[in-house]
């Protein structure tokens, strides 16, 4: 057991840190326009790619470096510490493609995914299929050498700026619901694809609805076999939900420092109660960080992401939501009068952390299963 970097990791971290210091785009976090921010993200992706920081854990044959997931965690951590722009999330789409794709699909889709030339989104959830994803209704009807897709997807993050979508649709309505689903790699530029931003309670448009009206997808763009969509989705979701994105830890630390400053500005640091609450927020962050390090160590040791990830997910939601509660309580009326309106937004942004990617209730069900409790 050793929480320190190995010599190789330390070397990687040092060179990465130097690279980040030179390459983080100046003033990126001052950009308010969403379109401009999206362009910046795309350029950032390209910059990272050219330096070899994208897909490091992917097999070499698919453009990766076959490194341990530890290096991606270090990237997340350092980028977070230095307040870099969000790191592109290519892992889960890539994994779906190189695990289930044909050789041709791999050749066609992986390079631009890695380079950032093609931005991807994920078309899984629907208005009537949230927690119960398998009940999705979007239909892909085979018509010659194409599928024709009709339906509505929801919670498609980045849908506005994506070029491609990993889409789940029902190809066989006559078999049990998990078995009739297939996965597709489909261009967001196809006729019939309409994207509508969803404004959240915070006032931000962070995600989208996507309407699919008679969208035609070549059969060659089906990923995996017909009916294999559920398995593909589960692989993807497992990698999405896992502790890989340790970038959150760094952002949590930044936020905690901001909350500490808020308390200081308001002269609350003399209060033992406030001191304890701030310390408790630090403890929650540390606990999450250390739990994620254990998860990561398990992955590095070759274990597939398992239900233990649900522990981290619950700790994450609790940490983030508790921190926003604390900020709100420190701000008091300012949070309600608009004097510190951005914190009200952060508060509302923290709420869905216990909803998306499997609600807190679903995570507890998963843990109960892992504990062997009967259905």
């Amino acid at each position, binding site marked *: 057991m050793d929480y320190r970097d190995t010599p190789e990791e330390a070397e990687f971290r040092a060179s990465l840190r130097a690279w980040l210091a030179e390459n983080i785009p100046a003033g990126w976090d001052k950009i308010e326009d969403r379109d401009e921010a999206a362009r910046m993200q795309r350029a950032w992706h390209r910059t990272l790619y050219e330096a070899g920081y994208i897909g490091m854990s992917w097999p070499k044959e698919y453009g990766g470096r076959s490194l341990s997931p530890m290096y991606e965690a270090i990237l997340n951590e350092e980028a977070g510490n230095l307040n870099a722009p969000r790191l592109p999330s290519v892992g889960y789409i890539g994994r779906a493609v190189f695990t289930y794709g044909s050789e041709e699909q791999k050749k066609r889709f992986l390079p631009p995914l890695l380079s950032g030339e093609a931005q991807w989104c994920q078309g899984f*959830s629907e*208005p*009537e*299929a*949230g*927690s*119960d994803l398998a*009940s999705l209704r979007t239909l892909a009807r085979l018509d010659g050498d194409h599928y024709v897709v009709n339906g509505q997807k*929801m*919670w498609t993050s980045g849908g506005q700026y994506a070029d491609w979508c990993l889409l789940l649709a029902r190809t066989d309505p006559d078999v049990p619901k998990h078995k009739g689903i297939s996965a597709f790699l489909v261009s967001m530029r196809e006729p019939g694809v309409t994207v509508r931003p*969803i*404004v*959240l*309670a*915070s*006032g931000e448009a962070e995600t989208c609805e996507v309407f699919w009206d008679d969208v035609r997808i070549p059969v060659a763009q089906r990923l995996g076999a017909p009916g294999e969509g559920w398995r593909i989705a589960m692989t993807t979701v497992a990698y999405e939900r896992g502790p890989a994105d340790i970038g959150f830890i760094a952002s949590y630390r930044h936020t905690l420092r901001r909350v500490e400053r808020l308390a200081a500005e308001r002269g609350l640091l003399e209060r033992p109660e406030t001191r304890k609450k701030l310390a408790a927020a630090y403890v929650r962050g540390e606990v999450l960080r250390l739990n994620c390090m254990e998860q990561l160590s398990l992955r590095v040791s070759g274990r597939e992401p398992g239900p233990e990830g649900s522990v981290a997910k619950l700790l994450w939601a609790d940490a983030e939501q508790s921190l926003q*509660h604390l900020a*709100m*309580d420190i701000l*008091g*009326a*300012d*949070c*309600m*009068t*608009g004097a510190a*309106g951005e914190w*009200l937004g952060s508060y*509302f942004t923290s*709420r*869905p952390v*216990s*909803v*998306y990617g499997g*609600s*807190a*209730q679903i995570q*507890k*069900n998963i843990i109960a299963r892992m504990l062997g409790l009967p259905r």
Partner: protein
Amino acid sequence: MLALLDAEQQMLKEVAGQIARAAEVANPGDLKTRDRAAAWESLAQAGLLGLRVRDEEGRPSASGVEVAVVAEALGAGLVPVPYLGSAVLATELLALAGAGPEAEELAAGGKRAGILLNRDLSAPARLPGDEQGYAWDCDGAAEALALVEAPGGAQVVRVPLDGAFTPVAGADLTRSLARYDAPIDPSGLTRAGRPLTEAELARWEALALAALCADTVGVMRSAVTKAVEYAKERIQYGVPIGSFQAVQHMCAEAYVSAEAAASATGYAAWAVDVLEPGEALTAARTAKAQCGAVAREVTETVMQIFGGIGQTYEHIAHVHTRRALTDRQVLGDEDAQLLRIADVRLTGE
């Protein structure tokens, strides 16, 4: 002892409920389309703006209980009218000060007044002194009430909501807020009635807190009702999500919190006109402490039950949260109330 609404109060509840339902904000889009003037006119015509106007013997035409009944109904409907600001906080202040005609004017509905609060919304603004602050719940009001020190007590003054005030977008989407950032020009203030004694101010605060609590109770109860209805209808895994025990218990916990707040609020509302001012205020603080402590949790639970859709701006859930959180802050959150209760319990005796 009978801790239940009597027949007349029940009838009032129905009337208030009807008006509230007609003006209800059922989804955020309604905020643009509701005819607020008509809703205000209905309240005026039903006499609900004049519950605290005094008769010739100085008795309010209705008790704190009636005020709470109306406030709860309007809170439940997220009705975007300044009932608390104008018909409760401002009218009661005028009535206690003996400014009968001014109170009558508000009761008639043709004129409205907001209440001026200090920067952290925890108390009525004191002028001079509170150099920044907010006119709260002042939709359609040309003035807001504040207090100035005067011989014999706190003098109510009318502050014109002129260019010194900037409308601000606060958390609450259903009630308005205007900020002032510089000392208020004393020459623009008009005195109303006679100075208020400490006891009268305590009585006012007791009513104000009880009415805020009733609003919160309305907001929470209707939020829980909506979540329960959704849980009955929303199908996942082939069954209504309300058949999952986890969802059932979330609903039950939110319900218990809301009902507990309602129990404390009922007593606080009753106490306003019956108990000694200090006791009435402790009852009101007790209710406000309870409401403040559960408001966030209850409305968050409701958002959680609504799942993804409950996180969107177009859904009503966050409008409940925003109104409840604002109620929590106005005249002091639970921490402020608890400290005052502790003063009475631990030092006062």
